[in-house]
């Protein structure tokens, strides 16, 4: 049965994005907001907003029972979790299911399966999807040393229970592994409540390539080409592009097929992303993880494929037959997204919440800005500091890069510090223009050059 009224359990630009996608499908929207967001753009645009709790996320956007109560009490029949917050909590998806609400995401069991990195690796193995040579869980330093010897240095430790850089340490020798293992496990335990680690071979010059898919929950899965998100700082993506211009057409087909092979056996439902590490020297790609949610960078795939991924999420969540056939999805052009963040790159990327006194976003052909900001709006200090996504699309990568440069130059944000100057610096950097970057380029090349250019210590 189609969704009639949707509760949106998120905030910021993605809440606005979901409200608009739902309205375009004739679905009524109820936005659950914290007290800090009662006057936000999404609250204004939604048919109704309900204040569920105080500003702190744990009392509002992370309080699953309260959100479900709000959904039922306002007559909603579905819940969209957006990204972050409760989007990948299996227990929340399960509670929605039990309350008779359509969870706009995967089945709870799927979230559980792909959220456990070791289980996900087993899934990849049985699907014949290549992985970086790695290990099952590693309990002790001695185990780690023995296993690392088999894999070959350098190795990287990873947390079984989550990503985002927590529990990740690169060791180039047994000595380095011995000294860093316990700290990595402790960090994973602190971040995810589970200190279980595993080891992987570390690729020095790697690219981050990921495939966007949508599955209907009945075994049909289509892909919307791939993205290159190699420009990262401490495993946080800064710039995302589609397609991955570095890959040959044959490789592009292979990586997309690998993503489908991996998720078909579990009849994946929802939009999702399969992340791969790509070794440019050997032209090999390796499975990293599955993200079972809509992602921040989904717009670049939308731009080159000409579809609305949030609307597709709403279709498959309520079991509406997918009208999508792979042959109908024909990527064209090149799209680049940059994340505009309320932070000061000259002050160790310190977050800079506050009131925006002047906001003027670029517009025009090939320019899209996803945001919940405007002049006079407060960036609250309680949440993620991303304030906008600038998405530019052109005929090819060069065209898109030129458009990115112009769009960034005309973007005006006053009242708070942002990373726009850094993004402008990237858009003019020869390595970026010539697409010679990797996942560690920002730390190795970009930041030192940017800081010295700005005369910072």
């Amino acid at each position, binding site marked *: 049965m189609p969704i009639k009224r949707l509760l949106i359990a998120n905030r910021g630009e993605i809440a606005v994005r979901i409200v608009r996608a739902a309205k375009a499908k004739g679905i009524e929207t109820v936005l659950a907001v914290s007290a800090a967001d009662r006057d936000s753009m999404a609250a204004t645009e939604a048919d109704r*907003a309900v204040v569920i709790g105080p500003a702190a996320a744990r*009392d509002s956007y992370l309080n699953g029972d309260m959100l479900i109560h709000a959904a039922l009490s*306002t007559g909603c029949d579905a819940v969209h979790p957006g990204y972050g917050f409760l989007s990948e909590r299996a227990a929340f998806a399960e509670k929605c299911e039990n309350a008779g609400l359509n969870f706009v995401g995967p089945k709870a069991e799927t979230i559980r399966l792909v959220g456990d990195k070791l289980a996900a690796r087993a899934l990849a193995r049985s699907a014949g999807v290549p992985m970086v040579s790695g290990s099952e869980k590693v309990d002790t330093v001695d185990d780690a040393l023995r296993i690392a010897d088999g894999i070959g240095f350098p190795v990287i430790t990873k947390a079984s229970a989550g990503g985002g850089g927590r529990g990740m340490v690169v060791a180039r020798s047994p000595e380095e592994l011995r000294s860093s293992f316990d700290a990595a496990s402790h960090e994973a335990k602190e971040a995810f409540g589970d200190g279980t680690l595993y080891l992987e071979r570390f690729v020095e010059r790697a690219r981050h390539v990921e495939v966007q898919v949508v599955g209907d929950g009945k075994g049909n899965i289509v892909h919307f080409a791939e993205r290159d998100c190699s420009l990262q700082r401490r495993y946080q993506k800064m710039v995302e592009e589609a397609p991955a211009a570095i890959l040959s057409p044959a490789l592009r087909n292979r990586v997309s097929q690998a993503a489908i092979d991996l998720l078909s056996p579990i009849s994946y439902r929802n939009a999702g992303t399969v992340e791969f590490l790509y070794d440019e020297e050997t032209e090999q790609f390796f499975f990293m993880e599955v993200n079972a949610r809509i992602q921040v960078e989904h717009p670049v795939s939308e731009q080159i494929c000409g579809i609305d991924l949030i609307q597709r999420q709403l279709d498959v969540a309520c079991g509406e037959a997918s009208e999508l056939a792979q042959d109908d999805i024909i990527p064209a052009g090149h799209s680049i997204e940059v994340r505009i963040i309320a932070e000061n790159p000259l002050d160790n990327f310190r977050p800079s919440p506050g009131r925006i006194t002047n906001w003027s976003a670029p517009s025009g052909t090939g320019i899209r800005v996803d945001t919940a900001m405007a002049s006079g709006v407060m960036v609250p200090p309680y949440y993620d500091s991303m304030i906008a996504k600038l998405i530019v699309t052109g005929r090819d990568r060069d065209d898109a890069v030129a458009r990115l440069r112009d769009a960034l130059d005309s973007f005006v944000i006053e009242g708070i510090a942002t990373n726009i100057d850094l993004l402008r610096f990237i858009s003019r950097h020869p390595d970026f223009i010539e697409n010679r970057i990797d996942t560690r380029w920002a730390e190795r090349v970009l930041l030192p050059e940017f800081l010295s250019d700005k005369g910072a210590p």
Partner: protein
Amino acid sequence: MTNVTPEDVQALIELFDAGDWDELHITLDDFQLHLNKDPAARRAWNGGERTVVDTPAASVATPAPVAVPAASATADATGSADYQVPDGMSVLKAPNLGTFYRSPKPGAAPYVEIGQKVDADSDVCLIEVMKLFTPVKAGVAGTIREILVSDAELVEFDRPLFVIEPDA
């Protein structure tokens, strides 16, 4: 005399909600129903003491009243943090979102009535979230002067619930 069931009321609300009527009144022997899509209307009707549907707390499975004003914003007369506190009065606000109940259980007498004296630690209502019922305390010793919310209504965080005149 009349045999109006909660299911009938539910069906009426759904029809009303889906249609383009703005207002609906039904009066039978011992039954009155007033539906309105204007959030301001509930205050104007019957002195603001009742909400759109006045059914006993637990006899309707779905808390129907709040489903009606689909397009109401957060800022109606009592729903916002901007509520003007009358001079010398103390206002007790909802500690979180939930369903407001005046009685400890269906059919029981309300915790408090207008004019009743309360202590700071007197329970004055329940807020329910997913079958978890949490009593709310008055927070101040005084006299209940106004009850701003109807039984079984969804209240948002910070919504004013009671006006209490503190003891001098």
